[in-house]
């Protein structure tokens, strides 16, 4: 007697046509982004590596890239200081006008950034609403504070929104439990709420910083000098053309990508505490 081997029925493996269409469209989007970035970086490396090396050893270029990162970092820190408490209130409290407040905080995301620059100038310019009385103490126009203010304006919403989602994901019962165990509100916030929302805060901070570094329109209106990376690229493009500006652009992209990838890898080890 032989052993009967049941032949498995051939599984018809065919994706749904709709999914095929979705795969195709997502591939188009992915390639669109990838080709644009990769073409610039690879093209630069293959055709004009010397130009990249030149840019990387040029003092004004390095200075402008460092300024972008540093000013963006300051804007992110201020966003954290102001945005985290705001986000906590929005996540925990209900009050009349809450929707208005939320929309207000999102306005910088939707207005054109040159418009934001003009608006900032009328407030922080030498004759501006705050710029004039602060004139003896702090300069915004064509100065570091102006860059930070412009970056803060356009990037703070990213941090506030992410932090708000983070705080919302922390069950208020956990804070209640902490309080009943003897923790005043600030201790419950520091030892329970903040650690549980930390991933959202980190992602929000990265988004905020990335947005600050990539800002050009608002910054250039209020502070053409000292030049941040994007301003220098624009300046070189106008005065010396594409071949002079591209190496700086590639360098800026490589530096920022490296930092973001590093942060992502470091934070990947963090545990995610989802509610169940």
């Amino acid at each position: 007697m032989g052993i009967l081997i049941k032949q498995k029925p051939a599984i018809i493996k065919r994706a749904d046509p709709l999914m095929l269409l979705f795969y195709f469209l997502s591939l188009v989007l992915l390639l669109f982004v990838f080709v644009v970035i990769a073409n610039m970086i690879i093209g630069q490396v293959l055709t004009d590596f010397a130009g990249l090396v030149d840019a990387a050893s040029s003092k004004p270029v390095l200075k402008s890239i460092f300024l972008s990162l540093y000013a963006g970092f300051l804007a992110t820190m201020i966003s954290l200081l102001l945005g985290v408490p705001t986000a906590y209130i929005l996540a925990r409290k209900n009050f009349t006008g809450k929707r208005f407040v939320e929309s207000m905080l999102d306005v910088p995301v939707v207005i054109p950034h040159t418009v934001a620059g003009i608006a900032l100038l009328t407030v922080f310019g030498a004759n501006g609403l705050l710029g004039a009385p602060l004139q003896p103490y702090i300069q915004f126009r064509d100065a570091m504070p102006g860059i930070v203010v412009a970056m803060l304006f356009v990037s703070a919403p990213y941090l506030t929104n992410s932090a708000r989602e983070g705080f919302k994901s922390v069950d208020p019962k956990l804070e209640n439990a902490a309080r009943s165990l003897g923790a005043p509100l600030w201790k419950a916030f520091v030892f329970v709420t903040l650690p549980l929302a930390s991933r959202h805060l980190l992602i929000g901070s990265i988004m905020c910083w990335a947005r600050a570094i990539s800002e050009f329109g608002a910054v250039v209106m209020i502070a053409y000098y000292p030049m941040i990376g994007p301003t220098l690229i624009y300046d070189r493009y106008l005065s010396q053309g594409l071949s002079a500006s591209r190496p700086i652009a590639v360098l800026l992209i490589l530096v920022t990508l490296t930092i973001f990838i590093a942060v992502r890898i470091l934070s990947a080890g963090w545990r995610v505490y989802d509610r169940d």
Partner: protein
Amino acid sequence: MIEIKGLHRNWKEFRLAGIDLKIRDGEYFVILGPTGAGKTLLLELVAGFYQPDGGEISIGGKNVIGLPPEKRNIGFVYQDYSLFPHMNAKKNIEFGMQMRGIKNRSKKAVEEIAGYLNIGHLLHRHPNTLSGGEQQRVALARVLVIDPDVLLLDEPLSALDPGTQDATRKILKSIHSDSNLTVIHVTHDQTEARILADRIAVMMDGRIVQVGTPDEVFDKPVNDEVAHFVGVENVLKGEVIESSNGVCVLDIGGKVLEAVSECAIGDTVYACLRPENVTLSKTGVNSSARNSFEGSLLEVERMGALVRAKVDMDGSFLLNAFVTNQSADELGLMCGEPVVVSFKASAVHVV
């Protein structure tokens, strides 16, 4: 003593209207009511998570209105335990002592409480790796270790499976008898209330409708609403007089009842019996049911597709039975008439 006077508060769809309660020291006090009665809100007001719109709460003679939760020295356990997910069990238990700045005796205290609740082997684990019953014990350890004046329990058993419920109920009972702690326990489960409570407050639609011992509440409900709510389950208190081969014989108010269960002779137990498992007849039926009693029909109530019959066993105990409309008509149920109730020994759940 915990004294609540004229407490009221409106909150979303819940409304507490003029709550008056006195809970004695060392009492196991159960607040029993249907879902949405405002029980949890009342507990949270006592804990101080919310402030009332008006009224008074005092704990141990001290008015606590306006006092934040961290100053009330209460232990609060939520239905879903609310363990801190980013800390292991040990860190969770230590949290209260850390917040109070007690460090020197914390190690010993954690070991003691962990031993008492049998969670010593779980201390290094994070809450999301623990079962419901284990989480519950860690949550209890976390509040007991700070030696609270009063323990507030919000539906502590309702998220657990039946087996774990029985075990946890025993733990709550022994915590209370070992520590003489004042406990306020909120639940919608009548069996739980009857078994654990020294006294019960029945809460409906944001008000307290009856306060009394379990016997008072279950045998003499103040109105139809309470009767309806507490009357559907049969929970009978008795003593084990015989036990062999997984069958035990209980003495319930002089009547002898058999149940499939492992018990120790002499124990005081509760026999729980669902009304749909009770058969009603005029003359007694020949069936595999081991328990059969003659009684008189006390009350008949039509509840849609079913009829609820309340039968008095010569004053020994009361039993609720569900019969269908059709069989109620066939039997011709009339109040005051003699009837025979029977049920299987396996239908009795002994706790």
